[in-house]
């Protein structure tokens, strides 16, 4: 994918040796993980399922905040609705695992009209506006007699499966959902939508002025994020079986998502995955300390926002010019093997555009 520019003084490169190796390794790891339930202990399978769900949440929150510039503290609305939809559908006779997927699809459909007016809000108004949506969704779900208010209910349909089968199926469902969403996001971000979203994030007016259709691009990412969070909620109900509205619609989920993305690296593709692994590890180590752990999470998120806004992976990328999953471009000055100023990373699609020949822009 190396294209010499018109001036000949630098080249535009997307894939590097490191990134090809990383993508191959990632694919290999995903295939290996698919064997998990056959090889690993029950406890480890459960834990990995949790990790995958965190991964989905982090990826979805980052797509929204890191790429479309939409900071939401109300994604628990979709998480809770996804779980609720799964429980409701299973109660109506849909078998358990299809109900998880169908529930997430229904929530995505519901999120489209919500996006129509929430996306007109800016910055902090959008953030808390989404929180209000989550609160309202919580209250409305409580009205359903099936849920029995805060007492909650269970996904009884899952009792058709033995505990071992259930564990394995839920694990695979979580792994496949995470992998599919991650690759979908990867190709979306490399394509037109990614370029549009990042341009909007960096400057909405400027993006609109060069012909980017701002609202449809934002809406696509909003609906995708709603779908992902709903799927995560449905999977969570499949692992824990009980559905208590208070737990599912808790703002805590937003806190977790923000922590994972801020620490991992907001606006980077690899960051949220790293953040999910870190969060998972920290939870395993300190989760038992309860309040102290939560104070630590809040303080860490705050310190990262203030002192290290790029997050860990953002710093790595910035310092080393390393991008393992190539969604940006690499501009190499001089010829490819002689680099006087080193590789210069251009993350923003808008910033890259002038240096990129039109043919290349269309392809990514």
């Amino acid at each position, binding site marked *: 994918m190396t294209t010499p520019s018109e001036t000949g003084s630098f080249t535009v490169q997307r894939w590097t040796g490191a990134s090809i190796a990383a993508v191959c390794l990632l694919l290999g790891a995903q295939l290996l993980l698919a064997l998990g339930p056959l090889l690993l202990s029950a406890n480890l399978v459960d834990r990995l399922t949790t990790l995958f769900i965190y991964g989905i949440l982090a990826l979805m929150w980052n797509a929204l905040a890191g790429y479309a510039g939409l900071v939401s503290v109300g994604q628990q609305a979709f998480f809770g609705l996804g779980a609720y939809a799964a429980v409701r559908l299973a109660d109506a006779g849909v078998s358990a695992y299809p109900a998880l997927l169908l529930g997430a699809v229904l929530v995505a459909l519901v999120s489209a009209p919500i996006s129509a007016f929430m996306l007109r809000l800016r910055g*902090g108004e959008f953030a*808390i*506006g989404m929180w*209000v*949506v989550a609160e*309202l969704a919580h209250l409305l779900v409580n009205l359903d007699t099936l849920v029995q208010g805060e007492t909650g209910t269970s996904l009884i349909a899952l009792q058709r499966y033995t505990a071992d089968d259930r564990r394995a199926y839920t694990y695979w469902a979580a792994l496949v959902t995470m992998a599919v969403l991650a690759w979908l996001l990867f190709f979306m971000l490399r394509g037109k939508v990614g370029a549009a979203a990042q341009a909007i994030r960096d400057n909405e007016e400027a993006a609109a002025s060069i012909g980017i259709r701002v609202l449809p691009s934002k809406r696509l990412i909003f609906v995708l994020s709603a779908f992902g969070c709903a799927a995560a909620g449905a999977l969570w109900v499949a692992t824990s079986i009980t559905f208590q509205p208070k737990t599912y619609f808790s703002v805590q989920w937003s806190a977790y998502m923000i922590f994972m993305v801020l620490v991992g690296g907001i606006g980077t593709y690899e960051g949220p995955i790293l953040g999910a692994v870190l969060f998972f590890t920290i939870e395993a180590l300190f989760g038992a300390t309860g309040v102290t752990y*939560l104070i630590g999470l*809040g303080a860490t998120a705050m310190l990262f926002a*203030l002192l290290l*806004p790029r997050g860990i992976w953002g710093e790595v990328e910035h310092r080393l010019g390393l991008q393992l999953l190539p969604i940006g471009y690499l501009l190499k000055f001089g010829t490819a093997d002689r680099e006087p100023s080193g590789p210069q990373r251009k993350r923003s699609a808008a910033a890259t555009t002038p240096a990129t020949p039109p043919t290349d822009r269309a392809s990514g």
Partner: protein
Amino acid sequence: MIWANQLIQGVLLGGYYALLACGLSFMFGVMRIINLAHGSLAVVAAYLLYVVAERWEIHPLIGLVAVVPVMALFGWVLHRLVLERSARAGELVPILSTFGLAIVLDNSLFDRFGADTRSLAPYIDTLGYDSWTLPGDIILGKLPLLTLAVAVALLVGLHLLLARTALGRRIRAAAQDPDTAQLVGINARAVYAASTAIAMMTVAVAGAFMAMRATFDPYTGPQQLIFAFEAVVIGGAGSLWGTLVGGIVLGVAQSVGAQIHPQGFLIAGHVVFLVVLLARLYFAHGIRHVFRALRTRLA
């Protein structure tokens, strides 16, 4: 008659929301920052008052004499350490940092005070339930009336501060254009820090009334933030008088909602918030269009 009563109780409740929201509205108006720790800070003030009242048997309203300056100092430090840095880093960063702060505050309070719900009601003699009865069995509580009066007084005070004082002029200048304000000799940093301190003083008062009228626990903050935010948005972000109107609309909606359905209190509040949002987005344009058409016809 029951509806008239609900309406009046709603207006009084709205006074509390306006009181709660005026600091949020003030900070948004001056710095364009929405402080997600707003509710949690009100709860911090409530706990401070609780400690003062419990240890020395001091009436919460007298306790405010000590707590208001403490909260002002806290606001100043908050601005210097957190808000200033976040605002420089972009418009999204303050949301994240203040959200993190809210989590830290809520859980620290839990760590220190435990899960017990508290109230300042035992420390205010009979003020909590004193009332006047109007014809038609409409009961006017003295505390809700006092809350509404304090809310109006604070809003008038903030308005006068902005309109009449030198500090107010500096705040307005820095709010409009901090860079130009700097050019004419205004220290925008100090002005913003002072504004945060002023907002935290109102938060202290709001915390006092929250704790006197009801119970609170370490995790009450986020709910209060949502109420305050709804009042601000319904009234029109950044406008102080709008905040009073917004608070009253929210209070009336909740009060009427509670009369319709047992779960209706919160639902009605959220629904009115979303309806106002929708109306503002879609009809504001339409209304402007009508005015423009009228003007051209008249001209």
